[in-house]
């Protein structure tokens, strides 16, 4: 008995490398040259500041944590049933999804159009590209305020439209319960279209010259060359741009906060606006519940996206 125990104890350290015996020579080599402790700082930070709060989300969303009470007690699904019963949950999710899809479409259409327009490398085009990068560098909050001023009922855009129409025009672009979300998505797309443009331009540059030459010799028109030869080669750029625009805008906040603040009648209240507002009111558990909803919503949509990104990695 005791001998058996002892052999077990003695054997244990030797048993460690066993899980991957086939890779042993290269793994001892790797252990020396690429030690695992290089991973420690990064993953320690990720654990404390990213994974742990995410885990907390799954706990505190089911409590009555608030700014008005000293203690925190579990309440089950109360927060969710409350958010669902007054329609807040469904509306916020719908608004967020609509916003994200609109931004992804607008940003990519604008970015693509700009890339095609400014494809040739000459001085004017290089200068124009720099101008389209200015909004990318600007604070999204600042962009929001600029457009809030521009789109006021008596603002400059309506003045310009009025001058063209020859009569006063005072449409409230940011005060329309149906269309304001489209306007805000356009503003968000305006801010980021320069980045999409650069990535599409880089994609266009990867199209080999000899393929274009071959298409030209075969008598393909510019239009046909573009759609049949060039655009399929832009697939990686499309993947990257659509994914970042879609998931980035689901997590958006600044542009909406600075233009409508979620209004009118909460028709542009995306999840992060709701979270910010309820957190400010001290309703921490409701804010956490919505934060969990956002997490699950993005996670659900992100799995296909991660798979696509990793496939791109494998091609590299």
């Amino acid at each position, binding site marked *: 008995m005791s001998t058996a125990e002892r052999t077990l104890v003695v054997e244990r350290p030797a048993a460690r490398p066993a899980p991957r015996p086939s890779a042993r020579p290269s793994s001892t080599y790797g252990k*020396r040259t*690429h030690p695992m402790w290089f991973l420690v700082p990064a993953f320690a930070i990720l654990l404390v*500041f990213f994974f742990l709060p995410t885990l907390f989300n799954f706990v505190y969303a089911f409590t009555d944590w608030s700014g008005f009470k000293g203690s925190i007690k579990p309440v089950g699904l109360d927060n969710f049933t409350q958010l669902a019963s007054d329609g807040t949950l469904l509306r916020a999710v719908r608004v967020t999804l609509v916003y994200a899809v609109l931004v992804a479409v607008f940003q990519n259409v604008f970015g693509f159009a700009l890339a095609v327009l400014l494809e040739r490398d000459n001085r004017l085009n290089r200068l124009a590209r720099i101008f389209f990068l200015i909004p*990318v*560098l600007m604070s999204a909050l600042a962009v929001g305020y600029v457009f809030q001023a521009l789109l*006021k009922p008596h603002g400059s855009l309506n003045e310009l439209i009025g001058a063209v129409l020859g009569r006063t025009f005072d449409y409230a672009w940011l005060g329309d319960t149906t269309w304001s979300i489209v306007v805000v998505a356009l503003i968000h797309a305006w801010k980021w279209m320069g980045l999409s443009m650069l990535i599409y331009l880089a994609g266009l540059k990867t199209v080999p010259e000899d393929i274009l030459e071959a298409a030209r010799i075969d008598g393909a028109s510019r239009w046909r060359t573009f759609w049949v030869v060039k655009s399929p080669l832009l697939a990686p750029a499309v993947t990257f741009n659509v994914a970042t625009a879609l998931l980035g805008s689901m997590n958006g906040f600044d542009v909406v906060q*600075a233009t409508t603040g979620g209004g009118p009648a909460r028709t542009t209240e995306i999840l992060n606006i709701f979270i910010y507002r309820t957190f400010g009111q001290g309703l921490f558990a409701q804010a956490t519940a919505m934060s969990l909803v956002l997490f699950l919503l993005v996670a659900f949509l992100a799995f296909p996206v991660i798979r696509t990104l990793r496939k791109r990695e494998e091609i*590299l």
Partner: protein
Amino acid sequence: MTARLSDARFWTKLQPVVTTIGVLVLIGIPLWLVVVTAGKSQGEALNPDLSLPSHWQLFGNLREVWVQGEVPAAFFGSLLIVVPTVAGVLTFGSMAAWVLARRATRLNAALYALGISGIVLPPAVVTVVLLLRQLGLAGSAVGMIGVYMGIYLSTVIFFVTGFVRTIPVSLEEAAQIDGAGPFTVFRRIVLPLLRPALATATILICLYVWNDVFYAFFVVGGRLDTLPLNLFRVASAGLYLNNWHLIFAYVVLMSLPLIAVLAVAQRKIIAGITSGAVK
């Protein structure tokens, strides 16, 4: 054939016109509005429009928001957060990415998937506040830096892991034969080769952190000044009082450093953004 040729020639003629009008309308009008409004008096800026100010008081307005928005404190607050965040994510992120790319074990594949999950998954902004309070880091710059690092390490790990795989191992082996340890190999051989990928990550992360207001609200709002947080404060007060001239003066102040950087380093920035993003 001739029709197609003239078609191409027509577009060559038209393209500069379309480009110029596009820049003037899409970028020129909003920027013009910012500059002329920032130069007006409060009365003239009550309803911001594209007209020139009757007399320019841009510097007076800038001076006023400089004081009211506590710009020096906000500027240093922003620097205090951005610099350690970027240095930290680049160092720790590329260290991890190097080992993840070079040692293809099943554990590392799982760690890599975890490591890049933050690119898409939204951070838990509400509970992170609770966690920081428990750690005694609530409202501190250290807490803010930690939160940003947690968010943006994924970006670095993603860009750099992909990039390391394109670097031949033989470069590292040569140094190993000369007796260099892993740390020396990483610092002397690998890190210099990573420059294009690190440039991309640096530019994007600087942009995100420098302009972020959402996470800053939750973590350091009211405790620490940063440029976007103070813009929000100035603008919230300004909208209430209809002080559009001050809001836009602050926008000018806040955007100037970035536009100066863009003007000086535009070639590097454009190359940096594109080289790492699309391969």
